[in-house]
């Protein structure tokens, strides 16, 4: 499992993270994952929503479990690769296989009930709306 707050609040936490990342290049974590592991994740933000993209090619969508609990999003599942045919040689073996689990801390203003998930071209796209009150609103002066 790889844990990191993807929504840093302050520059000091962010600098600490960078320092940790650089340190990791020399002393990788026992769980590996210098680049974050499988699936790779991109996170984006709009004023109305939080968008999470998990790059999980070749995974049966039914085998992916997406959960939001106490402001933490978990994407877990399993990827199985086709068995090696008899008398075949595996020359290059880079693709991830087995169970995976990634955890993302979400911002406070999201509405967990509004989450939706789609799987397309090997990308799992999770969209979570922010609460109405959190959307900035312009107040007109009469």
């Amino acid at each position, binding site marked *: 499992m790889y844990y990191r707050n993807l929504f840093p609040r302050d520059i000091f936490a962010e600098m600490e993270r960078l320092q940790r990342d650089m340190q990791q290049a020399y002393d990788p974590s026992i769980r590996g994952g210098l*680049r974050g592991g499988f699936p790779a994740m*991109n996170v984006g933000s*709009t004023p109305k929503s939080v968008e999470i993209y998990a790059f*999980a*090619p*070749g995974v049966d969508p039914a085998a992916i479990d997406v959960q939001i609990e106490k402001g933490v999003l978990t994407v877990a599942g399993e990827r199985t690769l086709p068995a090696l045919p008899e008398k075949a*040689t595996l020359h290059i073996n*880079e693709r991830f296989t087995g169970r995976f689990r990634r955890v993302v801390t979400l911002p406070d203003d999201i509405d967990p009930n509004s989450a939706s998930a789609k799987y397309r071209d*090997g*990308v799992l796209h999770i969209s979570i709306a922010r609460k109405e009150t959190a959307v900035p609103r312009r107040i007109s002066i009469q």
Partner: protein
Amino acid sequence: MSNNVEKTADSVRPDAGLFPPVNVVEDANGITLFADLAGVPKDKLGLQVEADTLTIEGEVSFAMPEGMESIHAEVSLPRYRRVFTLSKELDTEKVAAEFVNGVLTLRIPKAAHAQPRKIEIRVD
């Protein structure tokens, strides 16, 4: 944030791309290559065999809401690219490709030159 990264990388090396992870399996009849190309739609995948070089390229394209700001990007370039050198006994004319859910499966059979071949005699 990642937009800037993309732009910088693009201006420095226009053909810069992510290295897709692959598995390569060889059996008696040929080679099968599997490549992870998540986020590439079928029409943005490019496969090319030129002489003994196989090039796999794909443009990453997925639905993004308007005005989205990237906070964290592990897939930080908009394309994949990887090149392999093929060996002589492979028959590049008979490459078969399949692309499902971001996984490319390429089957390259071995050429039949070692096997006896019947030569057709044409009479003009």
